[in-house]
């Protein structure tokens, strides 16, 4: 398959890259690892006339401590995330989810920034970062801003990014002591995309759940917090009955945008969301406290 024709730029600095985005505003797309964008271009679902490849810019690939939290460069690959000792120790669900993206060859190219910017409804990392919390740092030629992850995913394949902005970094907060995390996913056997995936970050103190962030992907049009589920968990002892009841509400927020396609019906996705919410919550609760 051949993509439409486009002009290609491979800047070596962020200043050049953001200038190019401003100059070709509305026409240009940012090319990161390319493992979402290139397949879409081959199918002609995306036909940008200009690509700004940020793969030749040094210094966008890192995982490092940042105050109490962790900062991740936008060009950090899935493979780097799954093998990073800092990610594994601080956010085990992020390392685990990264290791479940597609396959090794894809994980060698695909990036966290690309995944978030693309906002595929079946992507893994948007839900995981949403469950962890934190923010996306985006830069234009003139300025830089932090976008809370809770406001970042806007709609199907749509984020709060402006078309002259490049994601440079993802900032993750420190998780309080007593926090457990998990990501549970039912994947398409060919693409390994999430038919449903649920990320859970749960804090338990004195036997009671004090904080819970649960995010669902694959089921609806974008990664979405399961707030009803979170409300049921918070303030309670996480008994099997409480977890079951909370998980049964996990598809509530995506009910209006449920995907229904050749891979899974809406009804089946609702069921899978509940099953994987239960698994993710159980696993996160077991690791918490």
């Amino acid at each position: 398959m051949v993509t439409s024709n486009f002009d290609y730029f491979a800047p070596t600095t962020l200043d050049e890259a953001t200038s190019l985005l401003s100059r070709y505003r509305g026409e240009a797309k940012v090319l990161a690892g390319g493992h979402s964008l290139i397949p879409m271009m081959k199918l002609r679902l995306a036909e940008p006339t200009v690509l700004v490849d940020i793969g030749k810019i040094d210094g966008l690939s890192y995982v490092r401590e940042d105050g109490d939290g962790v900062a991740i460069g936008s060009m950090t690959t899935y493979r780097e995330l799954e093998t990073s000792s800092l990610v594994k120790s601080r956010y085990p669900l992020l390392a685990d989810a990264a290791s479940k993206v597609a396959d090794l060859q894809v994980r060698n190219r695909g990036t966290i920034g690309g995944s978030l910017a693309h906002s595929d409804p079946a992507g893994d990392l948007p839900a995981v970062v949403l469950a962890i919390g934190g923010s996306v740092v985006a830069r234009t030629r003139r300025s830089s801003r932090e976008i809370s992850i809770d406001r970042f995913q806007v709609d199907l394949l749509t984020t709060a990014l402006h078309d002259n902005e490049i994601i440079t970094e993802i900032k993750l907060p420190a998780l309080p002591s007593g926090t457990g995390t998990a990501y549970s996913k039912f994947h398409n056997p060919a693409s390994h995309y999430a038919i449903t995936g649920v990320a859970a970050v749960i804090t338990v103190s004195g036997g009671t759940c004090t904080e819970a962030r649960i995010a669902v992907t694959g089921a609806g049009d974008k990664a979405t917090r399961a707030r009803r589920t979170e409300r049921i968990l918070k303030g309670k002892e996480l008994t099997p009955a409480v977890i079951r009841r909370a998980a049964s509400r996990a598809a509530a927020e995506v009910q209006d945008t449920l995907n229904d396609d050749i891979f899974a019906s809406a009804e089946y996705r609702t069921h899978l969301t509940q099953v994987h919410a239960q698994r993710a919550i159980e696993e996160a609760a077991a690791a918490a406290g």
Partner: protein
Amino acid sequence: MTVEITVTVNGTAHTATVEPRLLLVHFLRDVLDLTGTHVGCDTSQCGACTVHLNEDAVKSCTVFAVQADGTEVTTIEGLADGESYTPVQQGFWDEHGLQCGFCTPGMIMTAEWLLKQNPDPSEAEIRAGLAGNYCRCTGYQNIVNAIGAAAKAGR
């Protein structure tokens, strides 16, 4: 627009002027005439097009040739030294790790990378490592045996 790129493939630098939309796999096959790298699904799934890009195993159907400008690429043609096979190639020969052979270049390039990351993989690790490579003939058993044999020979 056309772009001049220089890619070092199997140790030799090649300079060519290409359209930005030319995929790396087509650059290898159609420009350099290195047809050992196969196009299978063309949708980033089957792994027949796997090559090494700066030593990482990647799917060359999902990389533009312009992205490979200035990099080093190794293809299946770059492995053997004359008649002397690598342990992975020898493993596929000895264990009959193929039937039609279409997936084999990608399988071998992935296996070479896997064994660099993990020289002593378990059978489960080999199978997990091959998640991005499809074989429609063998049922994978002999491919897994071949990589196991290569690991043993390499130790």
